[in-house]
């Protein structure tokens, strides 16, 4: 193999793909990156046998071939090179990387040892084309509620499914739950995508992409945007029927300015550190206010208040971190916060008819 490629393109590809290559595995080749000529392009790929990330880079191919080299070393070396043309050449399981006055000879392993890259039958796969802005927002909104409890693998994923003509994303860790409606769709899908995959997808998508394609087959999902492809296994199993847990109506409701709500959550969170984030929300209809109260027995206590449009009065105790994280990802300048009593789920959403994002938090026992 011999080819030349610009330093910028190669470096970007190596750093994007290289994150997937993992050093913590019993199969040493998984910490390598695969470099392979593919027609007139250079294919850069890595996998950890759960996710595979591939990227095509425009290159001037002199002779075809392939090799795998340690991901860390090659991406750090290439990123330190000056912006110029880089020449890659394979000689007996060594990769010669040269650019201007720099040359390296990196010991590699034959590409034949590298695991097969996953394939998806594109004609039969269920396909969605998404707006990158909505896509990223939906991921950010749902990933935060995914569990990292490995004893319940299903909850470590985000549930992509069609329901009443729309594609929904949902995630829960058993303490909170989020649901986002993404696009209208006719096709039927129900798949649990590992949250770790989605995090990787988020990190790999840079800002100037124009659309994201998502393809599902029975056991895999592929995300594609501007030459980057991330393919992942799906989590096997049935996602719990979470819709019945969303209360349709609540006794108490507060419509409140989002940034003001965030500010008082942040303030009262300071005093809730030693109680595990516990803050008490008091909604008072007569005063027209929503107040947060938190106590740090050694340090003092805090009451923060914001005016809100209130229906009925009540009190509930929540984890302030959950509140803050929810407020962070809800869209719009006004949010609705509703609950019924101290032990029923609290619902947060953007203000308005039929919001596309719902976030549910279970109260703490006070």
């Amino acid at each position, binding site marked *: 193999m011999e080819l030349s490629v610009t330093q910028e393109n190669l470096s970007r590809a190596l750093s994007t793909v290289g994150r997937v290559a993992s050093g*913590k*595995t*019993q*199969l*040493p*080749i998984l910490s390598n990156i695969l470099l392979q000529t593919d027609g007139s392009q250079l294919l850069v790929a890595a*996998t950890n*046998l*759960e996710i*595979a990330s591939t990227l095509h880079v425009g290159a001037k191919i002199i002779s075809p071939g392939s090799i795998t080299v340690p991901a860390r070393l090659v991406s750090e070396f290439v990123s330190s090179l000056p912006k110029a043309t880089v020449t890659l050449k394979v000689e007996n399981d060594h990769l010669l990387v040269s650019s201007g006055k720099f040359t390296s000879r990196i010991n590699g392993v034959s590409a034949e*040892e590298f*695991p*097969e*890259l*996953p*394939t998806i039958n594109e004609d039969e796969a269920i396909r969605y084309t998404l707006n990158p802005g909505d896509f990223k927002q939906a991921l950010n909104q749902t990933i935060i509620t995914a569990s*990292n*409890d*490995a*004893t*319940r*693998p*299903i*909850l470590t994923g985000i549930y992509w499914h069609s329901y009443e003509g729309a594609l929904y994303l949902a995630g*829960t*860790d*058993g*303490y*909170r*739950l989020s649901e986002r409606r993404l696009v209208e769709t006719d096709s039927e899908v129900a798949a649990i995508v590992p949250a770790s995959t989605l995090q990787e997808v988020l990190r790999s998508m840079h800002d100037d992409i124009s659309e994201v394609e998502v393809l599902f087959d029975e*056991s*895999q999902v592929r995300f594609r945007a501007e030459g980057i492809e991330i393919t992942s*296994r799906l989590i*096997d*199993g*049935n996602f*719990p*029927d*979470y819709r*019945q*847990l969303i*209360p349709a109506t609540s006794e108490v409701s507060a419509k409140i300015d989002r940034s003001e709500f965030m500010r008082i959550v942040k303030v009262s969170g300071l005093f809730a550190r030693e*109680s*595990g*984030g*516990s803050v008490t929300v008091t909604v008072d209809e007569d005063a027209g206010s929503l107040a947060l109260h938190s106590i740090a027995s050694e340090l003092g206590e805090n009451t923060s208040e914001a005016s809100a449009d209130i229906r009925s009065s009540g009190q509930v105790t929540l*984890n302030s971190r*959950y509140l803050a994280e929810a407020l962070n990802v809800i869209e719009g300048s006004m949010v609705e916060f509703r609950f019924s*009593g101290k*032990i*029923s*789920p609290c619902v947060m959403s953007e203000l308005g008819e039929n919001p596309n994002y719902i976030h549910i*938090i*279970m*109260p*703490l*026992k006070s």
Partner: protein
Amino acid sequence: MQQNVWQSVLGELELTIPKPSFDTFLKDTEILSQTHDEITIGVRNVFIRNTVEKRYHEQIKQLLVKNGLTAPKITYVQKPSQGKKTVINRETTTPLNRTPISSSAVDDLLSSPSSAPTVHTNTLNPRYTFSNFIVGSSNDLAYSACQAVAANPGVKYNPLFLYGGVGLGKTHLMQAVGNEIAKTQPDSRILYISTETFVQDFLDSIRFKKKGFSTKYRNVDVLIIDDMQFISGKEKTQEEFFHTFNALHQNNKQIIISSDKPPKSIPTLTERLRSRFEWGMAIDIQLPDYEMRCAIVEAKASLSGVQLDNPTIEYLATNIKTNVRELEGALNQLLAYAEMRGVAPDASIAEGLIGSARQSRPQHVTPKQVIDKTARYFSLDSTEICSAKRDKHIVFPRQIAMYLLRSELHLSFPKIAQELGRKDHTTAIHSVEKIEKASKLDTILREQLSEIRERLYT
């Protein structure tokens, strides 16, 4: 049959494929089904399937043919996951010092009829149940305590600490509790792990800054930890376990621990853990007595569909005394041998097999060995034990030696006295009676006796 073929296919593949690749791609594969025109091989995930299909297919095909399985088509599928259904947690968030809400209102709201299948992934082996545990005088206390715990987890005997030698059924009992709770309260989360796993998880959580360590261990309803003695000497791990223990105990979650020694005798166990282990109920499981060993042999044989005659049962029970696992092993050996030869298993076959595999033990222990081992256990010289000295630190080991000569070698009292250089056999009678009586009350003495016994027979 087909699994055996697959094992030999794997065995040959292992020789030609580098170990890391073999472990990653092929180790946990299996034949899922086999018909005349298709063999289905299960692999762990879709990524691995691709590689196995493209890279190892030819080799697998050839080896299958070589091992006598021919089919025009071999397909590879993802193995179905086991029991990975789950439901929304019915607990609310639990920060430190807080108990989750478990009022029925939330239960009703959060659990929904259609999400009813509530099998949580657990690591329990379903084979271990109360019904196939054989109860005798040496383990009936442990058995009833475990049943009480299974009926009311977290209420009675928390923590439950089981200790005893290898192969006496600690793991069986603990898993039986887990399985029973899983059956009666399908929603509860039960975590069965070995101490080694706990240590490894803890190290990983530090080394790779992995999250989820405390969630994994503190969000369970029943925590079962096997072989606690391995935590000794690992101070940070002990500290972490201490916190886990407290978090669970405070929330009335059941903790079950097993070890080969009582908490007191685990070396370098920090004081606060020791006192906690002794807090609930610590029960030892003793070596099974003769009648119980007979019952075990009979029950296990009938599980395999074989009726043994009494002499055979008695032979096995007499000759293998120290360990139920060994007893089962000998029985399996006997049954396998009889099946292969197409004969009925009887005492003479058993004698041939066991005689060849392991010499029946007591005949190989001499009175001198008993005295030597006892002396060495108490850091004495055997001449001291046999001397006329009456110092307390010598008298006690001497009495133990007498007791062991009686209980293990069934020597007569005059002979015992003679072995230890006494003239009067009444000393021997007195000593044996004294130790016998004391061993019923004194757990430390019992420990000592069983340790000396272990040394005798190894």
